[in-house]
């Protein structure tokens, strides 16, 4: 297993003249689960889009193993970096198996039909996301949680070492959130896939992340392991929210209790 090291070097990026990401340097820890935290509009999605070439940086570069992505072939990049975008749409009426199969594009050759490896990869992706029994269902008729697993399987069929996910659990109920995050953790542990995701739930981030990046106003303000980042001071810095941090009795990871302006704080030590 080679270490695919992905780095952002002095990234400045945005939309038109509007600069959103203002000079970010970071290195994605290989084979780990990283979570990007930050308030709405802080530039998390913009950062992921820049990593995945959906947005060309105004300056700076993204480098894979010290080679700028701009110097690499599209298909080679596509074999290393996968993405679950914040909003995924599928062509009308397409079935689950057909959709996941499209993840094989970077490996397909002109005029050749799907190879044994293609089928094996698609099957493995569908097994990992536990959607084999949905193979012939149309995407339009799936529940939110099922859809999300299908789109993750599409990214998995691409067989990349690095996988970005933009809010993979938003709009899902708590049980589905845990299910998806567990599947991702399993993928990380089994296949050593480097996972970088944007999550909004601080406690779930703390539970699943090996490493956390904290963003604010298009800048990286802190990074580190959960126990270093999930402190009431840093949470206030990121979100402007007062909180108390306790230890999750089950996973022993730090856990925050937000403080509302109506709370009576006399009992808090």
């Amino acid at each position, binding site marked *: 297993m080679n270490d695919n090291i992905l780095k952002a070097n002095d990234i400045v990026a945005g939309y038109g003249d509007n600069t959103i990401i203002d000079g970010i340097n970071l290195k994605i820890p290989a084979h780990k689960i990283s979570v990007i935290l930050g308030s709405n509009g802080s530039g998390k999605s913009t950062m992921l889009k820049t990593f995945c070439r*959906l947005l060309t940086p105004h300056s700076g570069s993204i480098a894979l193993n010290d080679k700028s992505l701009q110097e690499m072939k599209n298909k080679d990049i*596509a074999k290393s*970096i996968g993405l679950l975008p914040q909003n995924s749409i599928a062509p009308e009426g*397409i079935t689950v198996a057909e959709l996941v199969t*499209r993840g094989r*594009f970077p490996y397909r050759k002109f*005029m050749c039909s799907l190879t044994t490896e293609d089928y094996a990869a698609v*099957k493995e992706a569908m097994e990992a996301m536990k959607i084999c029994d949905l193979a012939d269902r149309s995407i339009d008729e799936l529940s939110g949680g099922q859809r999300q697993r299908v789109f993750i399987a599409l990214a998995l069929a691409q067989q990349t070492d690095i996988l970005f996910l933009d809010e993979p659990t938003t709009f899902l109920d708590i049980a589905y959130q845990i299910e998806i995050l567990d599947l991702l953790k399993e993928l990380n542990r089994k296949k050593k896939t480097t996972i970088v995701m944007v999550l909004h739930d601080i406690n779930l981030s703390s539970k699943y992340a090996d490493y956390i990046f904290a963003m604010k106003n298009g800048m990286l303000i802190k990074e580190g392991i959960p126990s270093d980042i999930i402190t009431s001071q840093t949470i206030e810095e990121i979100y402007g929210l007062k909180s108390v941090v306790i230890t999750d009795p089950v996973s022993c990871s730090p856990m925050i209790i937000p403080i509302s302006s109506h709370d009576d704080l006399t009992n808090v030590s």
Partner: protein
Amino acid sequence: MIDNSKIFANIKSHRIKYKIILTIMAIILLILVCLNMTIGEKNYSLMEVIHTLLSSENNYIIMKLRLPRTLAGIFCGIAFAIAGNTFQTLLGNPLASPDIIGVSSGSTVAAVFCILFLNLNRGLVSFVAVLAGAVSALLIYKLASKDGYSTNRLILTGIGAQAFFSALINWMIKKASEYDVPTAMRWMSGNLNGITTDTLPLLIVIVLLALITMTYLSNSLQALELGENYATVLGVNVDVTRSLLILISVVLIAFATAISGPISSIAFLSGPIAGRLCSKNQINTIPAALTGAILVLAGDFIGQNLLPTRYPVGIITGILGAPYLVYLLIKQNKGGSI
């Protein structure tokens, strides 16, 4: 462990179904070619036709009327069909066909102007029509993306442009028709009358080249169908591929339009029909092409032989397209978007 064959059973059976359907379509097309070559004002037997073709005997009706007419029908049908199917796939909406969103009529405006007013030859007309089609496509796109692009906005803008171009075409026809009504009529809805052999080789070469390129790009088109973002992540060079696909489509429309006029609904209908018949996992270039050729030849046969008076092919195919357009508008209206 789940059996491979179970997950992919449908994909594999679709592939077999796809081949069967292609074969059936090819047979239907062949039958239509035979019908169009043999039946008409004067009927010939199939043997007579084949004999004439092989010996290139000087039979005016077969060699100078029916052969060019049939070839033009096939290749114009293919050209409109793959252009339409490509637009619909790229933009992810059956309404986004070039004949609905003004790209075809942009070409037609130029073609009509060059033919009726400037009397240019067909090669030059096609060239100007390509330019005009590309310019209209670009203009419609720019107009639609002024305050942020959306496909819905593109379709609405395109329908507006379509209305404007149609008015322009009607006005030019009105001006010119005092001298030349039959020629003028061609530009209303497409017609295969009076096609001469010399205009055909270029069209055939262009259609064949386009088919080859489209087949080459069909995997990329499949990735693009998932949207620009997914296509990029999957390794498609989105800008280059998309521009190339649109350019090829515009070239096809322009060349076909310069020969037969804008045959109604072929671009709009062929892709969706092919999509219904085949699986979604295939890019429908080839079945759409066959569907287009079948629709044109069938429409022309009906228009020439089965009705009390003769109708141009575009009138017949137009009748097919209208209900589908209404159906789509109603269906998509229910979903809250066009």
